[in-house]
């Protein structure tokens, strides 16, 4: 087989899109980015095996005509690992959504507190000055907003547990 430009282009495109998604704060996008990166790496492993050939089965093809079986074995292992971790990530995202009703990467409270102690950059770090979506879930404003939403939901859907995922989306737009 002659070298093809398609495979490197696809790998590069997947890596670019994957990195872009991974840098997002939305956890679902992070998960999608991870899946794209995983597949890009699998294609990279595939291309590492060299030219393609017949299936590497004894009796089906001569050894010279076979494609390299080792990258295929590596890819299978990598796919299984990616699959398992993607499932775990989904569970974590769901848990995060149930806990704080939003699925974004959060700011470390302890970091913020340490940063706040130095007076020079206290203004930058004060959560009240931050954009609402950058404030942490533990911020006082967020609690009030959550409480409002809870009250409204409790009126609208009496009898349904408030952190049930099947509820229609609330009118509050966080992002």
């Amino acid at each position, binding site marked *: 087989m002659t070298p093809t430009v398609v495979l490197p282009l696809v790998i590069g495109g997947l890596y670019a899109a994957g990195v872009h998604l991974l840098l997002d704060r939305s956890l679902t996008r992070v998960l999608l980015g*991870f899946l794209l990166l995983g597949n890009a790496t699998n294609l990279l492993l595939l291309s*590492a095996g060299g030219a393609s050939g017949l299936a590497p089965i004894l009796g089906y093809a001569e050894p010279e005509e076979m494609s390299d079986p080792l990258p295929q074995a*590596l890819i299978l*292992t990598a796919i299984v690992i990616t699959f398992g*971790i993607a499932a775990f990530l989904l569970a*974590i995202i769901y848990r995060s959504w149930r*806990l704080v009703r939003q699925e974004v990467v959060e700011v470390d*409270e*302890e970091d913020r507190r340490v940063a706040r102690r130095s007076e020079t950059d206290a203004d930058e770090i004060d959560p009240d000055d931050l954009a609402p979506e950058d404030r942490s879930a533990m911020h006082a404003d967020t609690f009030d907003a959550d409480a409002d939403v809870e009250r409204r939901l409790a009126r609208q859907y009496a009898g349904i547990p408030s952190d049930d995922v099947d509820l229609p989306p609330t009118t509050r737009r966080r992002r």
Partner: protein
Amino acid sequence: MIRVLAPLPVLLPLVGAAAALLVGGRHPRIQRTLSILVLAAVLTVSVALLLLADADGAAAVSVGGWPVPLGIVLVVDRLSALMLVVAATVALGVLVFAVGQGAADGDEETPISIFHPTFLILIGGVANAFLAGDLFNLYVGFEILLTASYVLLTLGGSAPRIRAGITYIVVSLLSSLLFLAAIGLVYASTGTVNLAQLAGRLAELPDGTRLLLQSMLLIAFCIKAAVFPLSAWLPDSYPTAPAPVTAVFAGLLTKVGVYAIIRTQTLLFPGGALDQVLMWAALATMLVGILGAVAQTDVRRILSFTLVSHIGYMVFGIALASTAGLAGAIFYVVHHIAIQTTLFLVAGLMERQGGSTGVNRLGGLAAASPLLAVLYFVPAMNLAGIPPFSGFIGKLGLLEAGVADGGWLPIVLVAGGAVTSLLTLLAISRVWSRAFWRPPAQAGGQEPVSAATGDRTAARRAAWQRHTAVATATAPVTDGLGPDRERQRPLRPLPRVMVGSTAAMVVVTVGLTVLAGPLYGVAQRAAEDLLDRGPYISAVFGEQEVP
């Protein structure tokens, strides 16, 4: 003999995990006994492996009986056997601590039916990474231990743990993908992933290609080992986990990354193309890490930052690439695994006793619990490198190796190492003087309750405040709790199993000092083997020609 024993450190925990899962939550007592027995067996096997490897040299096992370059090989040499012994020791200590905590807490913080199997799988993954004789098996070992660590870090699924877990998982995933891509490129350029075979074939590559492969692998491992500037994830994610989990993570997981750096730098990429970069990284890791520790007020976060900082010493030793430097690095890894685990266990006890890990909230621990004070003081001085402890011996070895190297950069690093050591002393003695030494009345409540602390901790804190108020007859405690509540929650003594296991770990760290001579001898011989490369390659290929 060594060939029979070599697969056991991987096999036993995995089989044990399956059995522990089957036994499940119905028979927690059997599950606990089973896990402890399995880890004790792993420890015994590891000690036997170390003795055999030190006496007879390295040996390799082909798993599944495939001829050597084709199948998976497990290689036991002095370095991997030594790492196995330390890993098994701290794992056993932490597991006993966790059993004690679970028994005392009624299993709320560590849902025990999941905890034990996951913990065993973690140890299986660590052992697999230490024994792996090819790059892809090393990757699989990493994945096993990382996946288990994801579960352990997010145990209970509370908001702070999920937040910390997400950062940790995403960063780990990125480093794993980088590692996997590097494996793909290594295979594309050499046609093998067997470490011993790569040692020869990588040397035939053009310099540029080799440098690319080396830097990709190094970046992947440096993320796992938390080398600055790839270390920011660690102090964010470790402190929120349950005490035993943080302890085993801090002790073991970063050191697996350091082990991988040692292995690849010496076996695959001798010649030191990136040693200068590694030295600068080591210097930055030491200084930035320890300055972070000085700025913190939470015991666990202080310890997490010192953990990052002291990784710099090991990287320094690796970057020196001399026998003395590597021997110092290996000894320091061994010392640091034991010491950091012990200190995190002590921090767990402090939180239990004082109801907080914030040094501004704690006070008077030394008067109330002298045993706890001793348990903190000994490993803390050891960490700071006060003579005659093993931390001093390790640091001295590294600094001497740096001076012996003769260049100006190693001298700068020696100075940086000395400064780091002093700042470590500052950070940990601040914990000592505030949490243990000062009268409890001075302990202010100015810090907001950390998000990680729950209702239980608040109750413990209240009990602690009443206790110290009575014991020292100072300012009355005004925490708004009525007398009824007070009678319900007296200050409970620390559970014996937890204190016992922590004390045993402290004894182990002191034992490292007592046995420093033989240990340093093993580290020296391991370093010679690593630089020679011959023993490893001939252990895998035997008499036959390396293809």
